[in-house]
């Protein structure tokens, strides 16, 4: 992507190919010699983890689609067929269902990393907005995937979420009818959701390419939040970051496998093993855990339309974050006041998630309102903080932030190749 290509193929065939399609050189410049800030911590490994999860979902998903039947009378049975009859069907389905959850675990870490270190600030606004778009596409994909097994939660989740659009005046009812392809959630709805559930991951893959392209123009942000200036501030992607990413990925996969093999239904709902019944709503319907904070915001507002707008707004506001945060300093490590509000925001988001799973009455509603107010208030606070906060002193360079003032001077002459092994 960005041109750091020093790549010269070793063989004549390689040179012949490269002069016609310089793709190996593109990979070489993007993922081998690409200069990354030397101070990246493990929070920077989640991008790679996310890429892995997307591929894992596509591979397991396409395999499931070979055995799954997208029809209202057969979908539930075909999922049971996958679980009981298909060789390793249980494994592939559990990998896919838990894979969706792990995908969201990774994306939430990734988003909060960006929010803490100010990765959304100039010159990375487009990169950040592309990320918000990926997040939206992921939510749409996961929502429609959850409808496919056609259990009670699938059916009623689909009903409640599609009905959100009925809140819009005048056109609302028509939109909902067009989403359903009928007068209620039914076979046409299931059919189109399957088609779109198959499509969207590939659209995500497309946006991911843009996301990485936009990333490789300025390069990664880093825990110090200052730009790389000299070669001393960076290390080549390979082997330093390939190894770091791989190690984190393996640990992450261990957690993923723990869910798949030891408690595969922990994150799901028992009601989804009951076939969809349009005449009975389960006593306690809740969305998947990764939607809970937004669901809590929806329910916190007593008015239907305002509730829906607040919920969509809570995601849309993220896209404007680069302009809502007025501070020139990127990294939260150098912003004492910001740090307090940031962690409060993080805790607040978790509490919202907890509230989203509780019944919508009494104290829970009041608590949801307070948390919703802070969720939006955070962005207003960020706006003001930029004017009133006094940041602590920034290091002069990335190298200095890692090695200290002495070390950074020493590293110039000393064995620059051996030394980085102690850090990074």
């Amino acid at each position, binding site marked *: 992507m960005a041109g750091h290509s020093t790549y010269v193929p070793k063989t004549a065939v390689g040179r012949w190919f490269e002069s016609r399609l310089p793709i190996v050189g593109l990979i070489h410049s993007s993922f081998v010699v690409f200069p990354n800030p030397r101070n990246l911590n493990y929070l920077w490994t989640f991008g790679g983890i996310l890429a892995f999860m997307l591929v894992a979902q596509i591979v397991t998903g396409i395999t499931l689609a070979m055995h799954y039947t997208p029809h209202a009378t057969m979908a539930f049975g075909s999922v049971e067929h996958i679980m009981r009859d298909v060789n390793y069907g249980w494994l592939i389905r559990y990998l896919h269902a838990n894979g969706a959850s792990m995908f969201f675990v990774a994306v939430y870490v990734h988003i909060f990393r960006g929010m803490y270190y100010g990765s959304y600030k100039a010159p990375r606004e487009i990169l950040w907005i592309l990320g918000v778009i990926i997040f939206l596409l992921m939510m749409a994909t996961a929502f429609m995937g959850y409808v496919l097994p056609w259990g009670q939660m699938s059916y*009623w989740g689909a*009903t*409640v*979420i*599609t*009905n*959100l659009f*009925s809140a819009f005046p005048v056109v609302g009812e028509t939109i909902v*009818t*067009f*989403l*359903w*392809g*009928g*007068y*209620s959630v*039914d076979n*046409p709805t299931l059919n*189109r959701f399957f088609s779109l559930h198959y499509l969207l991951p590939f659209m995500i893959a497309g946006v991911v390419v843009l996301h990485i392209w936009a990333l490789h123009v300025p390069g990664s942000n880093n825990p110090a939040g200052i730009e790389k200036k000299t070669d001393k501030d960076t290390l080549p992607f390979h082997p330093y970051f390939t190894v770091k990413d791989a190690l984190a990925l393996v640990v992450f996969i261990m957690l993923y496998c723990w869910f798949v093999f030891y408690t595969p239904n922990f994150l799901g709902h028992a009601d989804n093993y009951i076939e969809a019944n*349009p*005449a*009975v*709503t*389960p*006593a*306690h*319907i809740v969305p998947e855990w990764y939607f809970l904070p937004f669901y809590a915001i929806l*329910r916190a507002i*007593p*008015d*239907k*339309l305002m*509730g829906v707008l607040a919920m969509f707004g809570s995601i849309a506001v993220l896209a404007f974050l680069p302009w809502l945060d007025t501070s020139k300093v990127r990294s939260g490590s150098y912003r004492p006041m910001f740090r307090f509000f940031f962690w409060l925001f993080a805790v607040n988001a978790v509490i919202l998630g907890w509230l989203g799973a509780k*019944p*919508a*009455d009494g104290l829970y509603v009041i608590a949801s309102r307070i948390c919703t107010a802070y969720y939006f208030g955070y962005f207003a606070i960020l706006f003001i903080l930029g004017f009133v906060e006094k940041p602590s002193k920034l290091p002069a360079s990335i190298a200095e932030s890692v090695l200290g003032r002495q070390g950074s001077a020493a590293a110039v002459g000393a064995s620059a190749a051996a030394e980085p092994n102690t850090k990074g």
Partner: protein
Amino acid sequence: MATTAAEPTRRDFLFIATGAVGAVGIASAVWPFVSQMAPDAATVAAGAPVDVDLTPVAEGQILKLFWRGKLIFVRHRSAQEIKDAQSVDVASLRDPEADAKRVKAGKDQWLVVYGNCTHLGCVPLGNEGAYKGWFCPCHGSVFDTSGRIRQGPAPTNLPLPPYEFVSDTKIRIG
């Protein structure tokens, strides 16, 4: 730029003409793709009227049935339930509607309403909630014995499907 004459050229004409045809072409190509999302002919045809025999529905019972894929409640109300529904101050309601407007004249005991909560579509539970009409377990909407919204997030009353009495004990929905 200097080479472009102030006079419209043949290229300008072709540009505008092609663009105009293209815009119409795109619009007419998009139309079928939007239209196919609407309920199809088979789904619409399933909206043929259905007859419901009311004789087996005992007082206090709520019958559930489907018309056009939508759930409908047929409720045989008791004298007390009718009285509760009628004695409400209509002006105090969120979606003001008199009980008489929600049933057929002389058939006060029969309430026929759509069975999906007007909030986000869950099925409310019958004979529950503060007004013993319906209670929606999803987000706590409470409906009275006339199917009118009394508490909770739902904005409107349970709507009435089109129906008529074809005999004393039989209704036709649709």
